[in-house]
């Protein structure tokens, strides 16, 4: 209803600056458990940066939020959305990793404990101002008011009980240097963060392929019934694990082969993608980014004097 009201206001007074309307919806995927799905796109002005899955679990002790989203307004609207589902207060926000689409909504939860792995907390606290410049440039007005708000608390691997839900926290790495996955043992839902992607090409700005594959193996071993990937649809395991692992394995081999042939990065960008991956959302553009992230290491290993 609030979203609708905002829409009407926009029509009536079009010159007034209004919050970007994310039109967030909460999909109940298990008891007390909701996912707020994002689009399988890159940051742009139309999507307001909403390219990410966030989620929340309503416990008897309050609501646990998984990731705060890409902007202050997203965070506010996520909080309003939670308010339409439950009267219970937000008790804890968990940030899965230090990529801006997952934590720039922190500003809307300033009165709540926001926690992350220590590596994630440190990385957000140390993020350069240019990071925000870049996202403001891509996303535009939807970012209005967004600032860097580092997590205030630190979580570590192990069990975490909130109200009537028993969680298992996993400290992983591979997608970034510090990746948190959250298994709700009460429902069997695994919030995999960006260790798992489904139908959307994985992003690699800080990726370490070997560590990432090892992290996927750890997730496979969990007794999860349903996997919420950082990006892409919710599905039972191991679909997202398999697809992400297959892509990473192909990347590793394709980039190594290109380096061995002496290709320059500018040529690798135009490489033909296998059919399995060419159909993933934003495949071509994301692959070009990946070449910039990962190819220099492959090139160097070929050039270095053995």
């Amino acid at each position: 209803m609030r979203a609708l009201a905002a829409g009407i206001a926009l029509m009536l007074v079009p010159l007034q600056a209004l919050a970007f309307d994310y039109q967030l919806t909460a999909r109940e995927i298990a008891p007390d458990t909701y996912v707020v799905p994002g689009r399988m796109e890159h940051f742009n002005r139309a999507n307001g940066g909403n390219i990410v899955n966030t989620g929340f679990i309503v416990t008897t002790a309050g609501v646990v939020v998984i990731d705060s989203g890409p902007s202050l307004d997203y965070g506010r609207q996520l909080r309003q959305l939670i308010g339409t589902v439950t009267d219970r207060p937000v008790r804890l926000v968990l940030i899965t990793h230090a990529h801006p689409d997952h934590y720039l909504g922190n500003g809307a939860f300033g009165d709540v404990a926001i926690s992350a792995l220590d590596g994630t907390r440190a990385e957000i606290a140390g993020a350069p101002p240019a990071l925000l410049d870049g996202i403001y440039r891509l996303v535009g007005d939807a970012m209005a008011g967004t600032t860097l708000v580092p997590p205030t608390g630190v979580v570590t691997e192990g069990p975490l009980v909130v109200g009537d839900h028993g969680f298992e926290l996993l400290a992983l790495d591979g997608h970034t240097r510090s990746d948190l996955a959250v298994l709700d043992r009460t429902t069997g839902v695994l919030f995999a963060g960006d260790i798992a992607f489904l139908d959307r090409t994985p992003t690699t700005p800080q990726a370490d392929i070997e560590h990432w594959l090892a992290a996927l193996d750890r997730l496979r071993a969990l007794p999860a019934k349903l996997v919420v990937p950082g990006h892409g649809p919710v599905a039972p395991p191991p679909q997202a694990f398999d697809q992400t692992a297959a892509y990473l394995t192909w990347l590793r081999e394709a980039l190594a082969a290109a380096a061995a042939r002496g290709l320059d990065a500018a040529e690798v960008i135009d490489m033909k993608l296998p059919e399995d991956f060419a159909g993933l959302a934003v495949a071509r553009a994301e692959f070009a980014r990946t070449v910039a992230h990962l190819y220099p290491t492959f090139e160097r290993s070929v050039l270095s004097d053995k």
Partner: protein
Amino acid sequence: MITRRALLGHGAGVAALAAGRAWGAAPMDPLQSVAWEDMRALLLGKGPVVFDDRITVAAPMAAEDALQVPFLVDAGALGRVQRILVFADLNPIPLILDFAPGRLAPLIATRFKIQQATPLRAAALDLKGTWHVAGQWVDAMGGGCTTPALAHGEADWTARLGETEARVFDRDGRRRIRLSIRHPMDTGLAAGIPAFFIEKVMVEDAGGILLGELATFEPVSENPLLTFEVPAGIGGDITVTARDNNGNIFRRKVALS
């Protein structure tokens, strides 16, 4: 002589050109860059210019890393060429490199620092004196030219200055050489850090005969990775000699076979 100042001043030149001068029958810039006419006047002189898609300019559509934007230029479809210029219209220092292939293949690849979204172009001068120009836009958040080199954070970057790595790859009979040189390639635009960059790379055969030479400019990325190709028929060792604007000389011998 082309000076950085002259190039830096091109922003003012654009306005002057727009106001007063027209190029008559000159072809329209397919990239619709505000700086195209200025680039043409500054870099290509008064010779004939054609836009020619036969030249490959491979580069990403968007710069993921403003400090390292890869590109590869291949003018092989034109046959032999005298020179290949690579430039980015809207960079504060537009000219990236000036390659005189000589007996080398008319192919060059390296990386450059991007300051803002800009056309990236290659202009190849054919044997008759016509410039053939191709290019594409590269989107960027930018700042690459005014960010200090990573080396600036290292207390003792001189210890590894000029270290080289090289390898030869077989490319359908041609030998592709990829060579990296450790060098900060400072543009002089980052506060307090003077311009310090490799400005010349010469490729000589085993007998010391010049095969081709490359003038490189401030926008070439830190620790340059150069890719060029030696046609079939040239054998033995080649020597690559690079010299920076402080007079440091770096040499690397590469065995072709």
